[in-house]
């Protein structure tokens, strides 16, 4: 038996090719894989990657190149160097890296672990898994979890929206008590509003110079529209303010906020200015209980957290390598008919 891998990802393949593969029905692809004589197979298909793991009998003479040929026929166009081909130990290590988020666009992201689980479940349902792929995929999920608990690879925000939400929760705690006010109707404001809504923010109000557009955004994120002239009053009620108008001069000054703060009785106010040029006067940040974050502040925090994740790559790869070579030894032992056992302890040789 040989473990084979042919696949491509956001680093190796252009978007059109990935899109062509993304529309394929995974169940049918696995079915065709079986009819080509591969005994076990799992397909990981996400928007950033398309990877086929398959087992071929040793005497069949099939290698990763043959699996890549299959991939090419599935894509309906030549894939050439856009795809990587790996066998046995290399394929194992690659899968463990994928499950751990080391191969992801955002290092350490956690969605991929769920996607690996789902891919495995789908293959199992299709009857395409056997002893080797069962242990391999369960193992990859175990390694993916372990890398995330033992290193800080998944720690810290990775997007401006998640930084904003994190900070809001460090100011207010539970966001379900927080009212959100959006000034303007830019697309970034929309994203932020949706993120806050998904974290159960109490209510969302939108004030926009163009009332029509404001009402549209309000209905999109299940909020209410506020007449533009009334936004200073709305400041007294809102806890989180997102400013994203196209105004060439600041529209929120410290006097307006100072007046609103009087009726807030010391409850904090969190302002997020994502407009360029800025909407909120810097003096506002100097007021008590007022926290003004500008786009570049949020971006700096994201960059910092990504840098920290990168810094954990080495430690994470060490765990992956260790576990991959252990699995390879197991794979060899199974193929030679004298199976050894895998360690499952959380505190093994790497701690």
């Amino acid at each position, binding site marked *: 038996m040989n473990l084979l891998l042919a696949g491509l990802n956001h680093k190796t393949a252009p978007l059109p090719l990935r899109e062509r593969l993304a529309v394929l029905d995974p169940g049918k692809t696995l079915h065709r894989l079986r009819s080509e004589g591969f005994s076990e197979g799992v397909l990981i298909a996400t928007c950033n990657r398309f990877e086929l793991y398959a087992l071929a009998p040793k005497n069949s003479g099939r290698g990763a190149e043959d699996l890549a040929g299959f991939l090419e026929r599935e894509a309906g166009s030549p894939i050439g160097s856009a795809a990587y081909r790996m066998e046995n130990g290399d394929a194992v290590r690659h899968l463990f890296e994928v499950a751990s988020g080391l191969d992801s666009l955002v290092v350490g992201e956690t969605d991929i672990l769920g996607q690996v689980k789902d891919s495995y479940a789908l293959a199992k349902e299709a009857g395409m898994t056997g002893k080797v792929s069962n242990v391999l995929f369960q193992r990859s999920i175990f390694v993916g979890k372990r890398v995330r608990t033992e290193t800080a690879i998944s720690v810290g925000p990775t997007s401006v929206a998640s930084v904003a939400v*994190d900070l809001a929760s*460090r100011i*207010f705690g539970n966001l379900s008590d927080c009212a959100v006010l959006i000034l303007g109707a830019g697309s970034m404001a929309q994203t932020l509003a949706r993120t806050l809504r998904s974290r159960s923010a109490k209510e969302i109000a939108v004030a926009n110079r163009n009332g029509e557009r404001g009402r549209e955004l309000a209905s999109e994120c299940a909020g209410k529209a506020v007449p533009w002239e009334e936004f200073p009053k709305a400041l007294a009620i809102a806890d989180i303010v997102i400013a994203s108008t196209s105004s060439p001069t600041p529209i929120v000054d410290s006097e307006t906020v100072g007046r609103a703060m009087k009726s807030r009785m*010391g409850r*904090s106010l969190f302002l997020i200015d994502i407009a360029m040029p800025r909407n909120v006067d810097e003096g506002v940040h100097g007021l*008590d*209980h007022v926290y003004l974050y500008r786009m570049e502040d949020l971006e*700096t925090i994201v960059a910092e957290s990504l840098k920290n994740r990168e810094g954990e790559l080495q430690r994470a790869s060490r765990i992956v390598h260790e576990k991959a070579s252990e699995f390879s030894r197991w794979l060899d032992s199974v193929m030679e008919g004298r199976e050894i056992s895998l360690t499952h302890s959380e505190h093994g040789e790497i701690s």
Partner: protein
Amino acid sequence: MELILAKAAFAFYAAAMALAFLYLFYKNDAWSLWMLRLMGVGVLLQSASFGFRLHSFWLIPENRYFLPINSFFGALAYLSLAVAAVFYFVEGRHRLGILGAFVLPWPVIGLGSALIWADPKTSGLVPALQSYWINIHPMVLMTSYAAFGNAFGVGLALLVQEHQIKSRKPSELCYRLPSIEELDDLNYHIIAAAWPVLTVGIIMGGVWAYNAWGRFWGWDPKETWALITALIYAGYLHMRYVGRLRGKKAIYVSMVGFASVVFTFLGVNFLSGLHAYLSGGA
């Protein structure tokens, strides 16, 4: 034996405090768990030490069944035990982890200074103190002091968190501390619970004074400062509840309140006549 156990308890508190400080800067839940375990052992050891003290205290016949807090050592030791026990209880239930660094210095300083500067020997109670009130009045007051000490730690954490967010460059610490509004509420709730205890404790003192000396209130420095403490915290509660004033300014007022607690407990011993029963001080 009492001192050996107290020293051991001190060592455990100090180690727990060190872990709490480490936990501030490095995310490792094992440290916070060990901090809690060490605190648990420390509380047990100090309780045992207190048991030995009780035993030797009761060897003096007139002391029988009164609590040994007529000396500086006894009072400080009881106070640190109360803070540690309150913290152990709160932390065990809420598992905030992070607050250890702000609260644990108090039992460490309290027990540490008792061991270093105070005289641990027990003595007979003077007749005026041979009253069941000695088991109630100081205990009630010191329990409220322990709660105020915890509230002070929470207030400190709030100032740190406020500074973190104002700086626009929040560190790891920011994501580990509870939110500003939660800390503000916690500070308020602890003080709101401790203030009536303090007030009742002061009134009990008045009743005892009336029984013992025939007068309710005598403007003795201890009495005066206890009253000032109660008034400062009343001011804080008024600001919070009626004026709905929150955040930094309210926290500063509550911290002044705690300074007054510390002064009432320590400083007044050098001024007070009637409350100078605390023997063997610094």
